[in-house]
């Protein structure tokens, strides 16, 4: 390998994960930490830590020029951005390249294309992928004309959004009338890009995404798919691989579409092509592409037996993929739960603080990716992810059992967590039987029946808290 030293421009569990991948490849690593993360686990495990700025992410983790300066000054020859923060920032990718440093991710023009949701839609269409009916609308009248043709409900989305941000749902003409200008104003304010587009709303949809890998030598492969339908406000809570209850034909078509899209846009490194799959018919549509390692990559690692972060580093080094499509095989089923510091009694508001106790049980088939330990700080400045609990077993039921047991035996004191909610979802017959769509969790929490059908009830303390589990 030509790479010798990797700069890790991230924090929390993913920084720890990248340190481990560097170790596996015999690479040195330098963690660029904010002041508040200087005694974190990643900082401790790395060969070196350097303070890139104060706790506020806007003055540290979100500053491409500080990251590149720090990487240069510490003699690093690659920058791994993790996920979030600058992971999909074309400026970091470009600035690194200008300074002779490998960016562990795609080149800036690819990030820009994928980040522009309208251009990505067009690229998907050109590549022959099904996209949700819709398109750019410059005026309210254009949006209304689309609605008249395709009906309600529909989604108004910001071209500069993505990842669940910048989305509005219109159920009826009066919604559209009031939401259109709000959507444009918000798009301008939040993303600096006032373009919006409309899409037909697929009500009962599953979120299924395809993991792809592409090297500098024209090789593009997929590593199967993941189902991430258990979400709240478009944020994922539980993910699994393979996607349950998906027909073999749909699976093959999805993974082929993921590869086709990555190839069409000249994608490099690891990425994820997201789709929504109509729960009833199995029809699927392209949603967007994420140009980074995903939070939920461990479920794919579990079923494929491959180290995806190490593969990212090899690709960034210019090596060809270490495997061909035919070498990718799938073994068993894996489920990941995201343990976050949130207070269920306060509407799942973040619950930052210092962990007085944190310990995870040892269970066969359980992997835990975390930066938490006794005394670890969950700062209020960043997302509240504490740990990812990944269960891998021969089948889905056993994988569920593993993560369930892990949640029960986990010790976490000092902050509130969502463990009760996670356990309640795993227990729920809708989850067990694969009847979960992306709206399911929010509707179940509201005590509504998502499908409108009678369904088995979880024990509920009251009618308005369908999924509230006993607090621990």
């Amino acid at each position, binding site marked *: 390998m030509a790479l*010798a030293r990797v700069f890790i421009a991230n924090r929390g569990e993913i920084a720890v994960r990248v340190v481990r991948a560097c170790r596996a490849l015999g690479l040195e690593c330098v963690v660029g930490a904010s*002041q508040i993360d200087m005694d974190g686990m990643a900082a401790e495990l790395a060969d*070196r830590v*350097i*303070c*890139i*700025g*104060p706790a506020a992410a806007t003055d*540290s983790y979100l500053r491409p*020029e*500080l990251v*590149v*300066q*720090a990487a240069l*000054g*510490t*003699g690093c020859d690659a920058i791994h951005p993790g996920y979030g923060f600058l992971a999909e920032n074309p400026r970091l990718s470009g*600035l690194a390249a200008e300074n002779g440093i490998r960016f562990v991710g795609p080149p800036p023009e690819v990030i820009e294309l994928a980040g522009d949701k309208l251009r990505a839609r067009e690229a998907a269409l050109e590549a022959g992928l099904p996209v949700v009916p819709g398109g750019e609308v410059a005026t309210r009248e254009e949006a209304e004309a689309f609605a008249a043709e395709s009906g309600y409900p529909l989604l108004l989305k910001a071209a500069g959004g993505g990842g669940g941000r910048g989305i509005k749902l219109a159920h009826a003409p009066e919604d559209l009338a009031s939401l259109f200008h709000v959507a444009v104003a918000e798009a301008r304010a939040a993303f600096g890009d006032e373009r919006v587009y409309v899409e037909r709303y697929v009500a009962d949809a599953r979120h299924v995404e395809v993991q792809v890998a592409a090297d500098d030598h024209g090789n593009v492969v997929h590593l199967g798919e993941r189902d991430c339908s258990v979400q709240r406000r478009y944020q994922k809570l539980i993910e699994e691989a393979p996607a349950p209850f998906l027909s073999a034909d749909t699976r093959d078509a999805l993974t082929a579409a993921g590869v086709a899209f990555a190839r069409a846009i000249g994608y490099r490194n690891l990425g994820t092509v997201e789709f929504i799959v109509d729960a009833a018919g199995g029809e699927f549509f392209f949603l967007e592409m994420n140009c980074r390692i995903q939070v939920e990559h461990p479920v794919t690692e579990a079923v494929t037996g491959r180290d995806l972060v190490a593969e990212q580093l090899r690709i960034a080094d210019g090596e060809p993929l270490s495997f061909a499509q035919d070498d990718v095989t799938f073994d068993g089923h894996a489920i990941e739960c995201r343990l976050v510091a949130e207070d269920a009694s306060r509407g799942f508001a973040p619950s930052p603080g210092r962990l007085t106790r944190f310990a995870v049980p040892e269970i066969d088939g359980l992997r835990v990716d975390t930066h938490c330990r006794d005394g670890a700080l969950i700062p209020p400045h960043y997302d509240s992810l504490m740990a990812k609990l990944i269960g891998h077993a021969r089948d889905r039921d056993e994988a569920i059992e593993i993560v369930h047991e892990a949640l029960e035996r986990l010790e976490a004191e000092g902050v509130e967590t969502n463990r009760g909610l996670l356990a309640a979802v795993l227990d729920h017959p809708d989850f067990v039987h694969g009847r979960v769509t992306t709206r399911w969790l929010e509707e179940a929490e509201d005590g509504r029946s998502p499908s409108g059908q009678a369904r088995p009830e979880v024990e509920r303390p009251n009618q308005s808290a369908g999924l509230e589990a006993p607090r621990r």
Partner: protein
Amino acid sequence: MALSDDDVREVLRLIDESDLDELLIETDGFSLHVLRGAAEATGHRPQATGQTPDTRDSIPDTQSSNGATIDAPMLGTFYRAEAPGASPFVDVGTRVSPDTTVCLIEVMKMMNSIPAGIEGTIVEVCADNAALVEFGQPLFRIEPA
């Protein structure tokens, strides 16, 4: 791979934390010879506080010294002068007021003037010219007026 100035400083820090008394590193076109205790033997730069110099004081402990520090307000490359060869903005003994420029910190070719932020006399320059400094790293020790 060539070692940067920063690598050398890191090597020194590791040695400081080890039990080694002497270390010789030789690679292609590069050698580094470190001898512990040599500084004391040859006379360490006297310190204003008159305390025995700690061999680990590359980052001085602000609490044990009477005086304050001017810390790096951002990560970047530390420059003591406006241009190579120019005289430094400040040196040991310079009296500064809060708005006196004490150094530049470069971040991706952007030069940031760093004001003292305090009135007093510089008693120590704690960072090397053209070296990478971290956010919060002490750059100067100062005797407040």
